[in-house]
């Protein structure tokens, strides 16, 4: 008893030691703020030397310098710069290519290290509620493998900043002017994030049980809070460049920092990136689990990594399902801000790359579904659902083919005459958005069905109303599919464009309702279900390759959509207020973008391998050489 008390005291003292630097920071911050409040004035006033000595009774001499208030206003009302081609430094390599690679790498790792602590915190919380140490261990392992990612993010972030200042000095000067001291707040948040990160990770075992566990969870929450704040601040720079706010027609700042930040696209991008980061992070750690599973021979280790891979895939797909809806919101806001910008993305020069997007999302859905179907072999109860898998696979493949059907083909004159026009009479209608909206919603519903069947495969419902519940669920699926097809066909082909766009929202709501109904019905129906045994580790090796396909497709997809997001600004650094006159002020062709995206994906893959290798290195220990031991004894 005494010993336990002693350990508790020891833990508290350790905790105090860890929190002490934070307290010091806070105290210094408060003192500084208090000094500012008690009239110590700004730095300029404090360092102003004696300016004038005059005799008592004489009038003051007019000083040439303008009052600080006017000087400040002059700075604030500075219009955006208009650099000429000669103002851009030429270092012999495409400036855009350099910034593209560094920016994308920074974003990849930034997304990873923001997402992992988020689901780690949730897994840790699940561990607390289930009192199952496996969750806690897995959450700790997720943190371990992503820890070095924070340093890599900072390295690429620093390199990106230097490259931007070197290659786009006018743009950066303008952005510095517009966002002002927000940059310092942004930098300051890194101190907080680093502090919470290291205390959260290294304090894992010191703060593992009892009330200290709640302290640990709080640290995790603060880590996530600082990380998310960093993300939304950085997002505001990107959205300001797309849809500037808080500035007038010539780019002069007329609003405060909050008005500059909260542009029309800020929150849609915040939500979209938040969800996408989780899906991306889940997919990357899933690849780690898959690699460890394939390398392990020990059945216990294989079972552990199988479970870890399943959890990662679960996180990735669950976060991925609502992502298209966040995408809809973002595009709707882009259209509302500027129809021209929206059409440039969806119907103009960039429209072709949505074929590539379809291939990527199709890969993600097929891989995610394949992994779930393969995972059903873990339990004998899955036999009853095997027949349905073939139907789901057929739906996915047909919808995938509709999704990748292009609307307009590049054809020769003879091909056009053979086809009887520029559009094929059957494939033409499948190339436009209504058909694709039907396809993507059905694919999402099919994926949710796979997920639902997987969750049901190790359970047998015991409630009396189970047959009724199943019938209701089937009715919901049939109703939803009929509604989605009707909305798409009727409003997509027999009314004008305005209704076409409106009906896609109703389709999305239908899909969401299926997901909500499915989760609610299953939660009630399987509350006291009979649980069949699951055999973790009993999954074919080929299923693990689905866990590699997911992060590759996610990485490629992120980079592709980044290319679209940046390109919709066309020849503007900051849309409508600061023109891009650099040699790279054109939208590159999709093939060039493909090369760049592959380059950054491969670089990311290599960096992630390095990250995993370093994470495993910490658990390795070299044996003391036998000869040295012998020599020592001699």
């Amino acid at each position, binding site marked *: 008893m005494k010993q336990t008390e002693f350990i508790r005291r020891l833990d508290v003292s350790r905790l105090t030691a860890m929190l002490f630097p934070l307290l010091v920071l806070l105290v210094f911050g408060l003192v500084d703020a208090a000094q500012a409040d008690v009239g110590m004035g700004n730095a300029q006033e404090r360092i102003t030397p004696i300016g004038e000595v005059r005799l008592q009774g004489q009038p003051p001499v007019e000083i040439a310098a303008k009052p600080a208030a006017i000087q400040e206003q002059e700075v604030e009302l500075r219009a955006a710069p208009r650099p000429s081609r000669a103002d851009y430094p030429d270092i012999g390599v495409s400036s855009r290519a350099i910034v593209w690679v560094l920016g994308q790498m920074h974003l990849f790792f930034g997304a990873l290290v923001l997402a992992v602590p988020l689901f780690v915190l949730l897994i840790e919380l699940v561990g607390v509620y289930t009192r199952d140490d496996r969750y806690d261990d897995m959450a700790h392992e997720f943190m371990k493998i992503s820890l070095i990612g924070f340093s890599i993010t900072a390295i690429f972030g620093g390199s990106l900043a230097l490259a931007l200042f070197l290659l786009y000095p006018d743009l950066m000067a303008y952005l510095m002017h517009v966002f002002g001291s927000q940059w310092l707040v942004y930098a300051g948040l890194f101190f907080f994030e680093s502090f919470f990160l290291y205390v959260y990770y290294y304090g894992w075992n010191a703060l593992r049980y009892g009330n200290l566990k709640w302290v640990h969870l709080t640290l995790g929450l603060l880590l996530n809070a600082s990380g998310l704040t960093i993300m939304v601040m950085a997002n505001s720079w990107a959205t300001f460049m797309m849809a500037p706010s808080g500035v007038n027609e010539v780019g002069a700042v007329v609003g405060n920092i909050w008005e500059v930040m909260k542009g029309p696209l800020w929150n849609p991008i915040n939500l979209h990136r938040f969800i996408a980061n989780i899906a991306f992070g889940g997919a990357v750690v899933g690849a780690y689990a898959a690699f460890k599973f394939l390398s392990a021979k020990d059945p216990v280790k294989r079972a552990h990594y199988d479970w870890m891979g399943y959890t990662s895939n679960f996180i990735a797909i669950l976060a991925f399902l609502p992502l298209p809806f966040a995408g809809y919101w973002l595009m709707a806001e882009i259209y509302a801000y500027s129809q021209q910008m929206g059409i*440039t993305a969806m119907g103009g020069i960039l429209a072709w790359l949505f074929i*590539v997007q379809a291939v990527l999302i199709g890969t993600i859905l097929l891989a995610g579904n394949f992994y779930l179907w393969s995972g059903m072999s873990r339990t004998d109860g899955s036999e009853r659902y095997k027949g349905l898998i073939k139907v789901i696979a057929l739906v996915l493949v047909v919808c995938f083919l509709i999704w990748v059907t292009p609307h307009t083909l590049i054809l020769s004159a003879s091909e056009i005459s053979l086809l009887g026009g520029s559009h094929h009479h059957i494939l033409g209608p499948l190339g436009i958005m209504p058909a694709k909206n039907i396809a993507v919603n059905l694919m999402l519903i099919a994926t949710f069905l796979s997920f639902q069947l997987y969750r049901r495969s190790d359970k047998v419902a015991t409630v009396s109303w189970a047959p009724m519940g199943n019938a209701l669920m089937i009715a919901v699926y049939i109703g939803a599919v009929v509604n989605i097809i009707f909305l798409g066909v009727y409003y997509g082909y027999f009314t004008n464009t305005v209704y076409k766009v409106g009906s896609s929202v109703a389709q999305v709501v239908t899909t969401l309702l299926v997901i909500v109904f499915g989760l609610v019905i299953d939660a009630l129906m399987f509350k006291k279900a009979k649980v069949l045994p699951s055999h973790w580790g009993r999954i074919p090796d080929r299923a693990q390759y689905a866990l590699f396909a997911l992060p590759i*497709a996610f990485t490629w997809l992120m980079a592709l959509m980044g290319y679209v997001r940046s390109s919709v600004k066309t020849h503007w650094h900051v849309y409508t207020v600061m023109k891009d006159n650099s040699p790279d002020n*054109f939208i590159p062709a999709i093939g060039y973008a493909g090369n760049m995206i592959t380059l950054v994906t491969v670089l990311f893959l290599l960096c992630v391998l390095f990250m995993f290798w370093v994470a495993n290195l910490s658990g390795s220990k070299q044996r003391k050489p036998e000869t040295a031991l012998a020599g020592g004894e001699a």
Partner: protein
Amino acid sequence: MSVLAKTLGFSLGLTLLFTLVTYLLPQIKGEAPVDKKVDLGSLTMESFIVLGDEIFHNKGTCTLCHQPAPLGRAPDIAGEDMVALANKHLADERYQGDAKNAEEYIRESLIHPGKYVVAGWGKKGSNDTESPMPGVDKPPIQLTPVEIDAVIAWLQAKDGGEVTVPLPAVEAAAEAASTATTGDSGKAPAPAATAEEALAKYACASCHAMDSNDALVGPGLVDIGSRLSKEQLRQSIVDPNAVVAEGFPPAMPLDFASRMTVSELEMIVNYLAEKK
């Protein structure tokens, strides 16, 4: 084969497959607008109309929205007789604009698209009182007066209508040099004929809102005539730093006195003095 080699090979193979898809698609670059020099000496109405056609389909980005049904998000301008349509809209009782003829109507709908919104094409929820179209003289499109004239000429001519816009004068072309016209013919710009031309020539609207009191770089000028006398207006143009409006930077160019002709200065002063 080791697990590392197999998984790495699979991942790289998949990456290259995605790259291959991008090469199967049309390779189109989205070029930024480039300067185009037009020799005013040899400019004919025919080539001016061709220029308008080119601007409509390229720099103007009009075809992003103005397409035939069901793809279009705005009326199919290229497929309609715009002169006949303009006259029809002018006769519509909903029309509240200031245009008196087809040319003025087209110009007004390019610069102030919200003055008359064709039924069914307004912003969602606005009941056709707001247009989703941006003014073409403003960013991001930023057509110059000469370019707008060229587009109007093309819209009038394409269905066999009479072209009423005049060919650009030398000074207007100089103003429009950034994208579509000569501007560097080596001749000194000719004086503006009207106050509007003079205001456009010296790009006053770049820094001053002409129709409101909104503060851009300089103060709005909607009621400047009630605040400053003619003498003060004249002084603020030729010697702008003599008195700087409170709260604004001394950013007005100092060389108007040497660049403006006396008649241009007087036209601008009289024009501004009437803005009350």
